[in-house]
């Protein structure tokens, strides 16, 4: 027996939304890498 339609839709949409946002924000972090601390950091 496979999954019922309602469960399948809820699972797929939720997983896509969560995985999509995770990938998007992590990709943005990778695209704008900052060296977080350096000796020349003037506070």
């Amino acid at each position, binding site marked *: *027996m*496979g*999954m*019922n339609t*309602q*469960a*399948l839709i*809820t*699972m797929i949409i*939720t*997983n896509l*939304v*969560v*995985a999509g*946002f*995770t990938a998007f*924000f*992590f990709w*943005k*972090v*990778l695209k*704008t*890498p*900052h*060296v*977080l*601390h350096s000796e020349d*950091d003037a*506070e």
Partner: protein
Amino acid sequence: MSNRESWGSRVGLVLAMAGNAVGLGNFLRFPVQAVQNGGGTFIIPYLTCFLLMGIPLLFVEWSMGRFGGKFGDHSTPFILSNMAPKKQFLWKYVGVFGIFTNLAVAAYYCYLESWTLSYTWHSVAGSFQGQSAEGIANFFNSYVMNPGWEAFSFWLFCLILNTYILSRGLSGGVEKVAKIVMPLLILFGIFLAYKGLTVEAGVDGAKYSSSEGLNFLWSPTPGSSIWDPKVWVAAAGQIFFTLSVGMGSIHCYASYMRQRDDVALNAMSAGWMNEFVEVCLGAAIVIPISVGYFGIDWVIENTKTGGLGLGFRTLPYLFQQWGPVLAVISGLFWFGLLFFAGITSSLAMGTPCMGFLQDEFKMSRQKSAWTFGAAIFILGLPTVLFFKYGVFDEYDYWAGTISLVVFALLEIILFAWVFGMDKGWKEITSNADIKVPNIFKFIIKWVTPSLLLFVFVGAFFKPVNNDWNAVFQGTWVLDDGSVINTILNSGLHKKIAATTDTAQLEELNKQLTFVNWSRLLLVATFAGIAALVYVAYRKRVKEGRWV
């Protein structure tokens, strides 16, 4: 000796923050909360609470941490007091929560972490091979209820390992571990999720296919409603605990950033990464596998007391059904994954205490790490030796649950109302690498504090069977798990009153004594940290650092 710790890279910081949030709860608590609160119905309140409470609290804690770092503060007592007018001297004592919680949670969490390490070893050594389901369940009960040298040694090893990594510093210890462990955790999780999603009825002894478990998890449970307050209290609670907010560890990690670094994108990335591990991986392992072998009714019955039982008593047995090789691999991956999730969290608990000792008492990194280790040893030993008398659960309830909600509620009041939302908004958005929607200004000021109050009141006045409709109908009876009845030990008193067996009565009376002593120990720990904060404050005044 000044505190000149720093992060080596942005990715390292984000992975360490995500590792701080990802814990055993992602795999053991979330799926159980979901099945207990309406299955598919749970997910909408859950994601809504993530947007309205989780993300705002992440923004607030990250920006408070970076703000504190500007003044050289790396722990919450002085981060908080710097955000309030100087005459409001009590804020530094509110900040005590940010050290106390980490210390007390690390004390029992280290023991939990040691179980996962021990089970990893036993999985590889083949200790579970050929054992019955009952045999494996008994193994766990005996391991935690009557800890022998093995349990003690694994606990001590975990404690020393944590302390050693902490003594290596942020970039040399915590960040290095996060960079190795987080990708491995996701890899292990994907493998187990694949196994969970491909359980087939009639294959390897499974009675049902994984679709049964997934239907159970993702379909709205008949009779459940999205408007049921119980579902919202559970969803808000889950979001709160999964993100490690209200602990002080996020403030501490963020305080080692530069002022010109972004907090908005980093916070979003770490927060969503935690959600990925919880929703996409956590939901695909324990429930589909357990339902596949035991059926829905069994799982409902066995998740009533939480997810630990499924994770430690059931899964090692089920892995054996997949043959000796896959049993070893799956056991190694499952308990290894839990261990990785645990250690990245426990390391985050060490840094606020170390930051405080380094900032205020000029301790070296190594000395502060070993002082933290010694404190964990003293505070954690009762959780190992007297687990069966409820010491572990007391720590978890007061330090790992109630303190978090109290601290988060007070810190957001400080941020939005005392420090001021305009200044707070500037802290969140300055140097941001993403545009933060303006609606969050309103959410942080009004919605998040209201939701936190909702969670707090929910814990304080929890009705029997979580039946919040009874509150509105005026037929409300306090649950023994509510804060009020917990303080009064009403559940234990009821058991004592109902017991006629002398031996059992003696055990229950012992439990009552241990529960009360645990609370006293926690109160003494809080008072001790508050006294240290006072000493640090006087020191600052004397040295002219209190302006």
